[in-house]
């Protein structure tokens, strides 16, 4: 049963975030952080803006 639950969690990650991010989510913390850092830095180099509007109240 534990294996079935683990598989269901992994399947959820694939459905929700896609195969690549599901793989990343199950990496050890240091590797996951490195992956996110590379992804964000690449996006910034390509001109992606990550800042959210400053509205005084946050969703």
């Amino acid at each position, binding site marked *: 049963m534990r294996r079935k*639950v683990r598989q*269901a969690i992994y399947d959820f990650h694939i459905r929700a975030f896609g195969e690549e991010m599901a793989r990343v989510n199950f990496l050890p913390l240091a590797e996951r*952080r490195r992956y996110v850092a590379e992804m964000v830095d690449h996006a910034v180099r390509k001109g992606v803006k990550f800042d959210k509007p400053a509205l005084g109240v946050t969703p």
Partner: protein
Amino acid sequence: MPLSYAELEQFYESLVARARRRGIACAITSGMACVAFGVAQATKDCDLLCAPDAAGKFLDLLGEASLHGQLPSYRGHLTPPLDARWMRGGWTSHFVWEAAGAEAYLDIFGVAPRSSSPWEAELHGFYAGPHTVAEMKRTNRDKDWPFVTALGAQMLAAQDARGWLHIYDENLLRTFGGASPAPAELLKRRPVLQLAVANDSRLRAALHAEVQFWHELDRARLHIYQKALRPYMLAVKKAGVPAGAALATQHEIRVRCAEKHLPTNPLHAYGVERMIAEAREALGEIVQLSTLAWLPDVREHFRVVTA
């Protein structure tokens, strides 16, 4: 040269470490916390929870927190002052470091939106606990919901039964329901779990209604705050903070404007019961009415902010 993500992450973590050394209770939350908890999110700005009583001390710390030689400023005309009075009432203060070609953004909350318990009670290193982060992610933005479920699944896998409160995926909920029963106390707190445990065919519609209910609650909450903010925003704009003014000067101007024009706790003034009733009414127009019977009692999620 833009700031790298690793550099930013290190900067925010060191800010939290320095704040704690000064006795300030604070913790990183939202996207950066999700990465730490095993749900990667691409984000560059930092959301930080800070005990309202320590707002003054945190502002002093920010006044010395240089990044690439730059000190932070308040962001925009809408940002309330970092002051215990407004932080306790659910406002967010926004700051920016405008280093050449490299900006860093920091949003500071005193109260975690929708949190059913004080966030200070449960910290994981530099971060707020996953239970707090998952409650904060129940927003009106569709993109946040998979993170809520993923955090809930992590919590259940780590034997934290509160994870049951955060699973919004039908398949996953049925799988967990088939594997082990949810504690009776949680079945009462979140009625839709009774459908999951019984493998009831009404689960999907009830889950959909529950998610939409949180959407409507968040819409209503944001509307209340945004409406209360306008006179303050105009006052800050009129006050015309001089370019390059020290953070302490910017703060004084904002406090003066807020004391005259910004209610400290608009949600309390509006009434939580009234907001919930309006959210339910709006929900009745978009979901099957029979699903309303499975909605949770959400009042506990607004007790901290209206205490």
